[in-house]
């Protein structure tokens, strides 16, 4: 079952770690996120917080993907099938966000 969850995550370009988290805890982890329960906890808190975000009173979840972008790496988070998938990617090459 772990392989089915994680084989897609393994192939993500520039990935340097991942977590698969359910209500019961961490189902799988690898790379820089291996056994990283602390990061898993923070990410779960962020997902729960983000789900409270509602625009114009819409009922649908407010995001397909939650990303946390640092200087040279990023965490990309998505929810599917009652599980939270987190991938840590290197050097996201983002452009300055000019708004």
């Amino acid at each position, binding site marked *: 079952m772990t392989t089915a969850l994680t084989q897609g995550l393994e192939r993500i370009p520039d990935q340097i770690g991942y977590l698969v988290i359910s209500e019961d805890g961490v189902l799988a982890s690898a790379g820089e996120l291996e056994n990283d329960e602390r*990061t898993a906890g*923070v*990410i779960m*808190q*962020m997902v729960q*917080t*983000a789900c*409270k*975000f*509602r*625009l*114009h009173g819409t009922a649908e979840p*407010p*995001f*397909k*993907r*939650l*990303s*946390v*972008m*640092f*200087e040279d790496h990023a*965490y990309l988070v998505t929810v599917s099938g009652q599980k939270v998938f987190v991938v840590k990617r290197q050097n996201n090459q983002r452009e300055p*966000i000019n*708004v």
Partner: protein
Amino acid sequence: MEATLEQHLDDTMKSPSIVGVLCTDQQGHNLGCRGSLSDEHGGVVSVLARQAASLTRDPTDTPTVCLESDSGNILMKTHGSITVAVHKMAS
């Protein structure tokens, strides 16, 4: 005193594809907002930014949090004691 901030918020809304902007303090109190982002979003924005910052040990590396959906992205970042959120529609 808020005139400068209010002007910046108005200027931000002039950018193409920007439909909302919000500034909060560290407690999530609204300092100013426009468009799709309003008082009710202040708490979530400030908490998300703070939670994201705890993912690194480097206090100078403040993250940008982004909620991505088909209808647009909400980007958030903390600068000092102020957290700014921008709602940008997909172009």
